[in-house]
Every structure is written in structure tokens, then in C-alpha cells.
């Protein structure tokens, strides 16, 4: 067991997309119980430093494992096809058209101060995210087509970034 282990090995969990969230959370809490610096508050600065490194690593691994997008990205990398979003700018044409339409709708709704419309848009994007994620899961766990999965992960990254933009606009509308 060492700091450089991949998240799945660190957590002792099978390297696939499907997972039990409750079991993952429980494993994370148990690991933090072992490595959190607070457990070593009375044991000196060196122990706290080492604990900090492990706690940070456990938190980082947890963040990756619980977020389906990052989990998928990690799996693609482990299976030899890193996602590398910055290198691949080719996206399906239909997808790009939809992105543009969505962006326009967001700008219009936000300018009008129409929180309900912005929320509706958020819901649409979330639905699309769920669909794409299901596809990624099937490609990785069932079909075994890693390059196709990596492509879909890049699509998912786009979607997630857009949804975050929507959330930010919602925040701004809530409290100007």
C-alpha cells in the first residue's frame, strides 16, 4: 500500500464503473478514520505531516471514485486510453449544434432574469448527462470499447462544464 497506488487499489474496490455509493462512502469514512491528522494530534508534528499526505491522497481518491465522470476518466487511463481532453477537440457535429443552442437559451434566460427557465435548462442538461454516463458505463463495463468510452467522457466533460456555468448563473440570479 503506498501513496502512488491508483484510487481503486487504494480503496480495495474493483476497477469498474458500476459501484455501490453507500459502500464507497463507508470505505472512505473508515480510511479517513485511520489516516486523518486529527487521529494523530497528540503524536507530534512528524506523524501529523505523514497523516496529512495520506488524508489528502484518500480525499483525492474518494473525489475521483465518487464522481462518475472522474471515475470514468481514471478507468480509461488505467486501461491504456487516457482521455486527454485538451488534445482531442473533435466532437460530434450534432453535439456542437446542441451546445450552441443551449448557450443561446441560457444567455437569453439569464438576461431576462428568468430563473425558472434557467432551472429548466439545467434539468435538460442533467438528463443528457445521465444518458451519456449510462452509455459510458456500458462501454467500459460491458462492451469493453475503451476508445469509444474516452470519446463519450470528453462529451460528458463538455456537458458538466456547461451545467456548472448554468449553476453559476442561477447563483447570480439568486443573490445579485
Amino acid at each position, binding site marked *: 500500500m503506498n501513496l502512488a497506488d491508483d484510487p481503486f487499489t487504494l480503496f480495495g474496490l474493483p476497477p469498474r464503473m458500476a459501484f455501490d455509493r453507500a459502500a464507497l462512502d463507508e470505505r472512505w469514512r473508515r480510511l479517513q478514520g485511520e489516516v486523518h491528522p486529527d487521529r494523530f494530534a497528540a503524536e507530534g508534528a512528524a506523524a501529523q505531516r505523514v497523516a496529512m499526505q495520506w488524508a489528502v491522497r484518500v480525499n*483525492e481518491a474518494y473525489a475521483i471514485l465518487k464522481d462518475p465522470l472522474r471515475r470514468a476518466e481514471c478507468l480509461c487511463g488505467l486501461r491504456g486510453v487516457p482521455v486527454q481532453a485538451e488534445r482531442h477537440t473533435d466532437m460530434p457535429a450534432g453535439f456542437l449544434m446542441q451546445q450552441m443552442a443551449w448557450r443561446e437559451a441560457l444567455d437569453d434566460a439569464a438576461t431576462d432574469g428568468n430563473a425558472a427557465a434557467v432551472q429548466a435548462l439545467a434539468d435538460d442538461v442533467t438528463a443528457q448527462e445521465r444518458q451519456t454516463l449510462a452509455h459510458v458505463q456500458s462501454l467500459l463495463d460491458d462492451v469493453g470499447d475503451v476508445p469509444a468510452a474516452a470519446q463519450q467522457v470528453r462529451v460528458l466533460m463538455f456537458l458538466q462544464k456547461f451545467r456548472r456555468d448554468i449553476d453559476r448563473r442561477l447563483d447570480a440570479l439568486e443573490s445579485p
Partner: protein
Amino acid sequence: MALLQISEPGQSPDPHQRRWAVGIDLGTTHSLVAAVRSGVAECLPDESGEVLLPSVVRYLEEGRRQIGRAARDAQALDPENTLVSVKRLMGRRLADVAGAERLPYRFVDRPGMVAVATRDGEKTPVEVSAEILAALRQRAEDTLDDDLYGAVITVPAYFDDAQRQATKDAAQLAGLNVLRLISEPTAAAVAYGLDRGSEGLFAVYDLGGGTFDISLLRLSRGVFEVVATGGDAALGGDDIDEALARHVLQQLGRLADSPHDKRAVLVAARAAKEALSQADTVTLTATLGGEAVSLAVTRETLEALARPLIDRTLSAVRRVLRDARVTPAEVQGVVMVGGSTRMPRIRTAVGELFGREPLVDVDPDQVVAIGAALQAQALAGQGRDGELLLLDVIALSLGLETMGGLVERVIERNTTIPVAKAQEFTTFQDGQTAMAIHVVQGERDLVSDCRSLARFELRGIPPMVAGAARIRVTFQVDADGLLSVSAREQTSGVEAAVTVKPSYGLADDDIARMLRDGFSHAEDDLAARKLREARVEAERMVLATGSALRADGHLLSDVERSTVEALVASLRSIASGEDADAIEAATEALAEGTEAFAAARMNQGLRQALAGRRIDDV
């Protein structure tokens, strides 16, 4: 098993029998200190049996001070020298203080943090807070009849890095060893949750005198996990007082110009506000410009005035629910914390949002200190093993300034701490050997709208062609929510020297000067205190190493073990001498010498956790 004996006159001959760690709630309006005695966490009272210490410090002639009730009662008499709600000024510059002109103080606009001019010189919020902390420390040490090992101090979840660092500085000045800074809502959840053995998703709505926090926590078998947190570090009961005060002056057609009048109308407003939690109408009285004035105020009027402030809190609640992807119905209980939650309108509003009655049966004034005391006990190693664990988050995003004054987020809000994130930079000029990085905290997109934390200068980058250098900058936020930065040039492996110029706060020089100038509650001179602290720390290390060897000595080879034992023996003998620096050096040597051992123990613990071999894991 030989034990390190530190015998000083008056001290118990067996100091390791008990390690007193307390919890301190350093509040805007009131402060408290609590400890766990005989298995019960309780707030410690002063000589008159009161647990609440008003967070008020009055500076008198000849360097004397009044702290607490006596100071609070004099605030209308001596408004310029009686500092109230100083928590609102911690880590802030004058420009950050909204409504500064309505306060009776003589502000000094210093670049790092605002200060107040008093008859005893200029005082920073850190010094004022240190007075309060020192008074609480005194109270605790008198009550417990022993020195304190350390304290857990609470801060609003929404306090940024500047405000947290200022709090730590104040504790250092007061001679307290800060075991951990914890969030007030988390502390309240601990006090509440452990008491009832609750499990599930809980919200803590914490409206104090000057700050508002809303936290969503998941409680599960002694683990308190913050899912999301939000709030406003400049919103509290004081603002409701101010709104009412403005209304009263308007209705009376008067102005409050003098410091006395400003303070008088605020005091009267607060009294009226509190009375209106029980009554429907009240007569507010005050002396303005030497003249007695009065005005009838109804609960309706107060609620109308408070409405925009209450709405701001509800917006923050909705945002936190959004961040957590949780609906109000999924929240099993809402805990109300802070004196301001006694207002009926607030309870109703929160009840409506969550669709259930808020939980109000815990004393909203004491609950935070009690939670802190429970955590302090656990950190001092006195609590039952494995019972309490707090997993908190960073409340505000951390980002870097990029081209055009924009912010690039490095660590998102609500990320569990401790956390580290690395970012790679490169040079843009041939032979460039230094670069500057500006770190900010906040959710906005423009640097100018965020809080500037610090400017880091990286020096010693090996000269290369532009764009060839790969400088990996690592941002780490520790369990207290404090940021530290390190940098390394990847191709050469050179650790760039990082100097931090904090945009706020006290320079190390300031603190050293204050310690030298003799802080009011410092009993001994600096040298004696340093020696005592060095010895205490040495003893801690020796004890900790001893228990580690007993538990896991089998992880070491014979050679490794005797090396460690030699370091321990060396430290013991040096600690019985008078040289504080030598003791510190020997302590550090032992710490370094056991680092590999600590890592090995950590690995062992992890393997056991994964294999599920923990005894209480059924």
C-alpha cells in the same frame, strides 16, 4: 517504564495523568470555554457563576483593561475605547467594513488589517480577541487547577483564510496551543448529534451576532461529514440592530453623530429587538444628545426591517442545498444555533423552507463551545478511540489570478479537507528565473471581486528557454482550512523558494513585538515561557513515541528501534536542562527520526482498515 519527570514548584508530580484540552467559542457577542469533566461536556463559569463572557474589551488609563460584563456595561459611557463585536473586524481592512461610519470607533486604515485607536494606543482585532481568549484561558486554568494542554477554537464555517489566520494569531498571543480550528456549525452538530446518537442528514442554521453559517452534515456512527457549507461572514444579529437603529433615528428625525449617540442607539435597538421576541410591542428608550427619547416599536415593524436580512440567509440555505444536490425534504432535522435564532420570524421562515419545525431545544449560546470541548477531548487523546471524527470542507473556492484579472479556480468550495491540488505553470521569457502568483478566495469570476489572500513569489527557477520550464505549484489546505503553497520545477527538480506576502494580517514581526511588549495576561517573561513550552512539547513527543513503540514496535528492526530509543534518551536528558533552543532541536530530531516509523504505522493502519480487521467493525 521510565517517565519524563518535569518537576516545578506547584505543579502536580504526575503531569501526564490528565491533559486538559478545552473548547472555546470566540463569538461576536459572547465567548465561552468548555471542557469535558467526568465524561460530561460543560461550559465553565466565572466566579459569579456565569458562563457567557461578553466579547467586549475596554481600554482604560495606565494600560489597564476591562474584559466582559464590566466593559460591556460601560460601552455607552466610553464608546471609543470599548470595543464590541471585534470578530467582525478580524482579517478585514477598513474598506471591507460595511457601515464603518455608523460605528463609534476611531478606525486606523492599515494595509494588512484595520485597527482602532484607543487611549492605550492602536489596537488590532487580533490583540483585542487575544484579551478575550486570555481571559477564558485564565478561567479554565483556575477552574481546572492545571495548565492547559491545548484548545479547539471555533470559527464560522464561512471564515476565509485571512479571518482564520487572524484567529490563530490571537490564540498564539494568548498563549494557547491551538489543536484545531473547527467550524461553528460542525461543533454544534457534534454537541447535538453525539448527545442523541442521530444518524442521517442534518442542517445547522447558525445566526450569531456578526456571522451567518448554514451547513449540511451527514452524521454516521461518530463521523461528522460536512457535505456542503455556505453563509455570509458579514451578516448577523448586529445588522438587525443597525436596521432598527436607522429606523428609530429616521422616525425621530434625529442624527447620531457623536460616538456616544451611535453606541446608545445601537444598545437600545438590541434591547428592543430582544424584548420583541416575547412581546408584540415595546418602547425603545435612549439618551441622544443628552436628551431622553423614546419610540414605540412593534414586532411587525422589526420583522419588516429584518426581512431583507432573513431573505439573504434563506438564499444561502437554498444555494447550499443546490451545492449538495439535496432537497429540503431529505434533511432530517434543522438545528438552530446562535442567539439571533431566538427571533420568532426566523424560526418560522426556516421551518417553512425545510417543511419541518426547527430543533431549538439545545441552548443556542452554549452548544458550539460544548461541541468544541468534545473535539478537544478527542484530539488530546482522552476520548474513546475511534468515536469522533470531523470531516470538514473548504467553504470558499481558491483560485489564481490569470490574464485580464480573471480567476481560475484551483480548489472548489465544499471540497473535503485536507486537500492538495497542483497546477503547472511555465515561463514566458527566455531565462526567466522568477514568477509571481496571486491567490484569491471567493466565488466570483473577477479577481477584484474576490478576497486577495497572498502573492507568492517563486525564485530560483533555472534559466531556460521561454515555455520550457514546468513549474508545479501545489496548493494545500490543511484541516484548519489554512492554505500553504510549495513549488517545484519539474525538469530540474529544483524546489523554488516561495515567499508569501500575505495581503492581510499581521507580519511575524508584529506578533513577535507584541509578545515582547508583554501581553497583559502573560505571567512570566518570554524566556521562561519558551522554556516551559519547549519542555511540555518534549514530554509530549517522548510519551507519544513511547506509546507508538509499545503498540507497533514490531514494525522496526532492532537497529531502527535502538536509534529511536537513543533519540528519546537524548531528548529526555536535554529537556531536564535549561536550554530551550536545544530542547526544541532535540524534539525536532526525534520527530524527524520517527518519520519513517510513523509512515510504516500509517501503512499498517490502512491495510488493516481495508482488510476490515478493526475490532469494532461489525
